[in-house]
């Protein structure tokens, strides 16, 4: 029978099917971090269970780590306590731990792929909804709750009903200045934040084939923002080139065996999806959000829609614009901005820093802008230095911070102050997400860079010459 990519990977991980219930689903790789794991370890202990396969779980500290002076003790006692709990739990159960100061430390969804933990055809979970990122490699990857973290620790399985299948095709070429982030924000603006709830998405078509692995990670990362449990892209030569020789990928004969399997990971020609959507790459502009969920996005040259033209409740829409202090009909371009955040598991990879540097090169940071540039990992940080990008951004008046989730969810000290407006390359513009009372505009690294040098929301295409965006 014809199968989709998702079917092939899902079905090969079902340990037991329960009639009119969930599947018992085997997990190959499990990431844990300091925020959603401590209670799972407590639960494990209180039941007298043990960690079944410690070698299948990987711990990294990221959510509430500081992004300056990481060599000093963590000031916030609550954060320090969580980091300590992670370290102690990892040590107690023999789980690898890349804590603060470790050279492999970074955001879980950045360091996993960097180190070859993320593999095609694998099942990957983490107590973090942006685990969907790893789907870029043809893995089934999604976020879980803490009860499920405990399940994976003690049994390497969770219990999940199989989601429905959706394919999103985007063909044609992307326009000048349009990035993977814009593609994702465009899809979410079309589907809304609940449009893919209950589905697992496969991204197909020229646009995703032509995308780099970093770009695919950005798109898959944002799958959860349209409600999907996860998203995936069939692995191809780009995928194999990316993972080959990574520290933890299979080597030698094991690699050859794995490759044989990985080459079968595609959707059969006549396989059927529960829902299929098709968009045209040429229709996508650089995007920006204007409201308090990621579905409230528009092309950057557009104006904020009237309540009468949007789907859903008018009261909710008006509440959202009220929070943002915006009005229907407002232009986005030219809005004065206070903060720019480059980073997160969405856009904290080397390609994102290259894009940012391509715009700020030879320009100066606008005086009204406070900019936080936070690499996704030490490996990204090292590449920024090696490639000379650090010199470019320093010359333009920016500084580079140390890796972590940072202002994406503002659990550490990197909080956007109440009322301030931020252009952010992260993934959520919910009320207060980046600090109590903060206001967030989600956009690509190019839009963030253009805004950082002008001080107002700026279309990056106006600052770039076509040839500079090779």
């Amino acid at each position, binding site marked *: 029978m014809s199968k989709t990519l998702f079917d092939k990977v899902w079905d090969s991980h079902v*340990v037991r099917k*329960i009639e*009119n*219930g*969930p599947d018992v689903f*085997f997990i*190959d790789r499990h990431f844990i971090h300091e925020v*959603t794991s*401590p*209670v799972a370890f407590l*639960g494990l202990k*209180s*039941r007298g*269970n043990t960690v*079944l*396969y410690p070698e299948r779980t990987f711990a990294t500290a990221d*959510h509430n780590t500081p992004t300056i002076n990481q060599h000093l003790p963590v000031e*916030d006692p*609550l*954060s320090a*306590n969580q980091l300590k*709990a992670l370290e102690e739990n990892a040590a107690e159960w023999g789980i690898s731990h890349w804590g603060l100061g470790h050279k492999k430390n970074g955001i879980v969804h950045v360091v996993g792929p960097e180190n070859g933990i993320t*593999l095609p055809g*694998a099942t990957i979970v983490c*107590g973090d*909804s942006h685990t969907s990122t790893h789907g870029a490699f043809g893995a089934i990857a999604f*976020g879980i*709750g*803490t*009860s*499920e973290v*405990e*399940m994976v620790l*003690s*049994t*390497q*399985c969770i*219990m999940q*009903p199989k989601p429905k299948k959706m394919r999103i095709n985007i063909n044609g070429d992307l326009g000048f200045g349009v990035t993977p982030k814009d593609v994702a924000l465009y899809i979410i603006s079309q589907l809304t*934040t*609940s449009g893919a*709830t209950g589905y697992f998405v496969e991204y197909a078509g020229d646009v995703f084939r032509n995308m780099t692995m970093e770009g695919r990670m950005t798109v898959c990362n944002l799958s959860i923002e349209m*409600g999907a*449990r996860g998203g995936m892209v069939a692995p191809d030569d780009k995928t194999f080139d990316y993972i080959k020789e990574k520290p933890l990928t299979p080597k030698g004969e094991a690699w050859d065996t*794995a490759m044989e399997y990985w080459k079968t990971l595609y959707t059969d020609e006549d396989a059927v999806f529960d829902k299929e959507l098709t968009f045209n790459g040429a229709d996508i502009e650089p995007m920006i959000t204007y409201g308090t*969920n990621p579905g409230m996005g528009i092309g950057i040259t557009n104006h904020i829609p009237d309540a009468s033209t949007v789907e*859903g*409740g008018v*009261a*909710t829409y008006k*509440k959202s614009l009220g929070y943002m202090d915006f009005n229907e009909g407002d232009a986005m371009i030219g809005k004065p901005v206070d903060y720019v955040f480059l980073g997160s598991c969405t856009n904290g990879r080397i390609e994102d820093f290259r894009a940012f540097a391509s715009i700020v090169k030879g320009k100066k940071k606008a005086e009204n802008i406070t900019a936080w540039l936070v690499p996704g990992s030490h490996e990204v940080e090292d590449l920024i230095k090696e490639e000379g990008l650090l010199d470019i951004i320093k010359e333009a008046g920016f500084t580079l911070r140390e890796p972590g989730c940072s202002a994406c*969810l*503002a*659990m550490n000290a990197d909080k956007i102050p109440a009322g301030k407006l931020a252009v952010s390359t992260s993934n*959520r513009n*919910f009320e*207060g*997400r980046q600090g*109590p*009372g903060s206001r967030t505009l989600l956009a690509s690294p190019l839009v963030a860079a253009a805004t950082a040098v002008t001080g107002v929301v700026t279309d990056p295409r106006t600052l770039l010459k076509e040839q500079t965006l090779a």
Partner: protein
Amino acid sequence: MAYDKFNILTSTAVPLPIENVDTDQIIPARFLKATERKGFGDNLFRDWRYHNDDTPKEDFVLNNPTYSGKILVGGKNFGSGSSREHAAWAVYDYGFRCVVSSFFADIFRGNCLNIGVLPVQVSPEFLEQIFSAIEADPKTEIEVSLPEQTITIKATGASESFEINSYKKENMLNGYDDIDYLTKMKSEIQEFAAARPF
């Protein structure tokens, strides 16, 4: 930890007729720093419930003594965003045992089921009926019957059925959880794991 059994719940309800209530609103990230599962109810809807100086916002429903109960009724797409189970813990710890909406985000729904909070999905029309009934009389009672899989507005008798798979239904009726099930099949899992290529 296994949880409370759920059978028939009859209670007044707290209305929150807002769509796309995300888990950052249910419990903001800065309150996720505990290493134990306690006290999350204090910070349920923290930034909608309190001003920056920690004084209550009088117009928020949880600060309005007119409304109380063990059932929270929310707008469409309730619980979207982050996978933090802390959101479900906060709902539970505050005293809710059931959340009603016309649409739930996947992970939040699963998290609720895993800790013994029953997510009840109703039609948009029935959701409106519930909001209207509470508006007309804040003391109106809602009955949620898990064995019958029905939700009823007591005053009007209006009723609708809801879905839950039979495995989860059994779990909730008996207070079992998934870990109880999984630990009983460990040898089957180990056999499966031994055959995995990576």
